[in-house]
Each structure stands twice: as C-alpha cells, then as structure tokens.
C-alpha cells in the first residue's frame, strides 16, 4: 500500500494546512459584508425618509394632516392624508376579499386533495403568476377588467377602486396560496392519519385538523398579502387614477398612498416645496405600515407556532 494513501495521514495533513484555516476565517467576513449590506441600505432609507418627512411634519399642522382635504397643487394647498390612507385601505380590503378565499381554497386543494402529480404541475404554474410584472396587471385591470365591470355596474368610472382592487387580489392569490400550502404541507401526515383513524372524512381532516395545525402559517400568509397590497403601486396608479376625494364609493376613482408618490415624483413637485416633502411623509407612513405588518406576521408565527 502506498504510504501517501494512509487516511489518517491525509486527514492530519489537511488539519495542519494553514490556507484551509485562513479561508475558514476569511470567507465568513464576506458573508457578513453581504448580510450587512441590506441592513445598511434599510437604515439609509429610513434615515432619508425620516429626515425629509420631519421637514414636512414640522411645517404642516397636525390638524391639516389628519383632515380629508387633499389639494397639494392648489393656490392654497392642503395636505390632508386621510383620502390616501382611505384609498389604500379600500383597495387592499377588496384585494384581500379576493385573495384570501381563493388563495386559501387553492392551498387546501393543492395540499389535501390534489394528487402528487397534479400538485407538482399546478404549484409552479401558480407561482409563475407571482412573477408577472405588476405593470401588466395594471394594464389588465384598466383595459380588461374595468370595461367588463362597467357593463355590470352602471355608473362605474373609467378609473375606480374596484377594478385594481380585484386585480391586486388576483395578483396576491399565488402568494397566499403558496405560503398557506407550505404551512399545510408541513403538518405531519401522522396527524392526518390520526384523524382518519377516528372516522374523519377528508373535509373534516382538512378543516378540523390541518387548518388549525397550520393556523399560524396561514395567518402569516394573509398578513404578508395585506402588506403586499398596501405597498402595491402600478396597478392602482394605472387603474384607480388620481382623484383626491375622500370617499367610500368603490366605483369612483381614488388615489392610494403609492399612487400619490408616483404622481408627484413623475410630475413637477419642485425640490424644497411642501409638496416635495409630503412625498417623504407618505413614504414614511407606508414604510411604517408595511413594517408593522411584517412584524405582525412574525409575531403570529412565533406566538402561535404549533409544537409538533
């Protein structure tokens, strides 16, 4: 036998190899750098937002901010933010009314009823839907869904909250479905077997065992879906228009926070004007909102994490 082939010798040599040790120390530093990059960026964004938003909040009285009158470009401008928040909440609500029931049912079907082969085909297709650029969805809402809705609902405006709300819901379905399906899939089969052995039907297993066991994951998927709807921009900018009225009428045009930012960054809000700083204020509110949503999702997963 060749001496150099001695396993113990080779392993010992390998341990004494200095280069190997150096890499072991050096490479993780690169990893750290990559990881901190996103943290640094986030902090940077928050600082910019805070800094310029502060300029806005220090110049506009709180009473005006929390009013329903939004007219940033009039001779006597008013910066009430409630119309924007209202529009964002309404479109998000419509979206979730579409995304939650359909997403959850799709997840249930995929996880509990579809055969393995069918699931392997359907799930990637569904996830493909999530990869479509949102501008395409926006166009779809404006030029396809709105005309249909106009036939069904007389008096529906060409730009309205309903159509982008629905399309946003469609866009979010894959996300809710996919995350919920993951949660249901991670429920151990032994649990289903336990329920079947007690004479449960498939539906009973799905609703009485799997959904409760996957509850935290399902809730988290809802919250992330809402967060996505709140932050969604192109669809509402295109199909909901830029009316700054405060209304609960979903057949009318209304401007969401994101659409407001789009309008003003692409328009002519001169740097240094109040209108310019209002963008940062709205941006900050959006940021805080989505942050809270994501924290809530994390909290739910942790608090209700099923131990099995």
């Amino acid at each position: 036998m060749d001496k150099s082939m001695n396993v113990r010798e080779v392993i010992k040599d390998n341990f004494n190899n200095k280069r190997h040790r150096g890499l072991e120390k050096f490479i993780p530093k690169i990893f750290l750098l990559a990881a901190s990059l996103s943290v640094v960026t986030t902090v940077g964004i928050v600082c910019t937002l805070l800094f310029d938003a502060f300029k806005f909040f220090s110049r506009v009285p709180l009473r005006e901010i929390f009013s329903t009158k939004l007219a940033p470009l009039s001779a006597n401008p008013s910066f009430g933010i409630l119309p924007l928040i209202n529009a964002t909440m309404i479109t998000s609500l419509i979206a979730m009314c579409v995304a939650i029931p359909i997403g959850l049912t799709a997840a249930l079907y995929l996880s509990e009823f579809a055969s393995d082969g069918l699931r392997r085909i359907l799930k990637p297709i569904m996830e493909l839907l999530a990869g479509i650029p949102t501008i395409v969805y926006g166009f779809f809402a404006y030029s396809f869904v709105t005309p249909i809705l106009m036939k069904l609902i007389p008096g529906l405006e060409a730009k309205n909250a309903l159509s982008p709300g629905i399309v946003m819901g469609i866009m979010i379905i894959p996300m809710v479905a996919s995350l919920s399906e993951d949660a249901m899939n991670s429920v151990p089969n032994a649990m289903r077997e336990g329920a079947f052995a007690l004479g449960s039907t498939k539906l009973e297993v799905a609703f009485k065992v799997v959904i409760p066991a996957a509850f935290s994951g399902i809730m988290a998927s809802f919250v992330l879906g809402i967060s996505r709807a709140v932050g969604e921009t192109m669809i509402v900018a295109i199909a909901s228009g830029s009316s700054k009225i405060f209304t609960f009428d979903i057949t009318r045009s209304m401007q969401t926070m994101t659409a407001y930012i789009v309008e003003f960054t692409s328009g002519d809000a001169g740097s240094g004007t109040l209108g310019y700083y209002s963008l940062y204020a709205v941006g900050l509110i959006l940021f805080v909102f989505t942050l809270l949503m994501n924290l809530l999702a994390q909290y739910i997963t942790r608090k209700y994490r099923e131990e099995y």
Partner: protein
Amino acid sequence: MISQNTNKDEAKRIIYSVNNLNLWYGKDQALKNLNFTIEENDVTAIIGPSGCGKSTFIKTLNRMIEIIPNVKTSGEIIYNDRNIFDSAFGVEELRTRVGMVFQKPNPFPKSIFENVVYGPKIHGIRNKKKLMEIAEVSLRNSALWDEVKDRLNSNAYGLSGGQQQRLCIARALAMEPEVLLMDEPTSALDPIATAKIEELIMELKKDYTIVIVTHSMQQAARISDKTAFFLMGELIELDKTKTIFTTPRDKRTEDYITGRFG
C-alpha cells in the same frame, strides 16, 4: 375451573374473519392469501421480521391502507358479518368501530381535552357536559386521568411521550370502539411507559378486542392470548400464544422466536 375456561373459549364470538386476503402496493405483493380469525376480547399479537407485512395487515383491518395511493386488495375481511370492502360499508363508519393507535404518538396540536373529544365531536356530540364526561371516562380508562385532570386545557404536546401515547389511546377509546388496533404502540417509549401501556392493555381487553403489532417477543408473550407469526407477507402460524412460544407447529416460527432467524 378449567372446563369453565374452555366453555368461554367456545362461546367467543368471531369479530374478524379474513378470507384469502391479498394486497399489492402497485405491483409488489405485500400480503399473500391470508386467512385469519380474530375473536372477541382477545389480545392478538402479530409478530414477524421487519417488512413482513404486519403494519400493512393491521392497517387493512380499518382500511387505513387506502390512504396510500395504488393499493389493491382482493379477498374479503368479514367484520361482524359484513365485508368491509363492500361499497355499502362506509369507511368512516368502520373506523369509528375500530380504533387505531400508532407507532409514534400523534396527538393533534390542541388541548388535551380537545384531543380526547375530537372523535365524538366530529360525529355529532355537542353537549358540553356529555363531552366532559366522555373525556373523563376515556382518560380514566387509559390510566391518564390522574396525571392530566388539572391541565385538561393545556397543549397535548406538553405531555411526555408515554403520556401522549396514552392520550392517543384515550382518543380512540372516546369513540367507544369495539376493536383497538395498535401498531407497535410502545416502540417509541421507555420501559416504564411501556409497562404502563402493557398494564393498560391487560385492563382494556375486558371490554375491547385488541390487535397489536409488536417487535418484542416478550411483550407478545406477556400480554397476548393469540399470536400470529408473519413472514414475507404470509401468515405462517396463528395459535394460542402459549402454544406459539412453547410448541410451535412450523419450523420457521420456532426459528424466529428462538432468535435463530436470518
């Protein structure tokens, strides 16, 4: 005394009668022409080397095997005068009459109480008082009541493995089944928890017919009345446990129980 015993033996009702049962997983045959009877209030132990079809067989008795795709069966299993493979025989109904306890405890991620009353609840019992009564009786019968009576509302996963397994037994008992199927119910437990479950089985056999798969020859000898020896999907021998362990008829049975098996 002795004559009384034999009398009782003769009077025993046949609960299961398995005739020419074959089972295939896709193309692989896992059970080969089984003929088998299981009598009321007996503990029937099933022994045999790994992969011989013990789990497959016991899961066929409550048709849990059908959860696995591509399973085909032929032959019949007569349970109380009805063929369980008859399309008229609802599988859910069968499973309410025939309870099952699994190798690894598998409580639901719910409270102890909710675990026990899960079965009665889905089958239509809503009355709170009645459910509470069911929970207490079942937990007493599974020898768990004293350990959990003060924390019925805490999560079942806070219990030890042995307690979880007794909870699963309670969950099955809550349905007031006629038969209990147990697939290696103690293989994930320590000796003390195992002893408790064995004691429990001895107690339960007064009211239930029990079929238990076990890898422990001693366990089969301790708790069963009848023992069946399986080998490669075939039933080699089924007899009184005493006979199997002292004077088996088949050479292969003898080889297996004396540990002389390949």
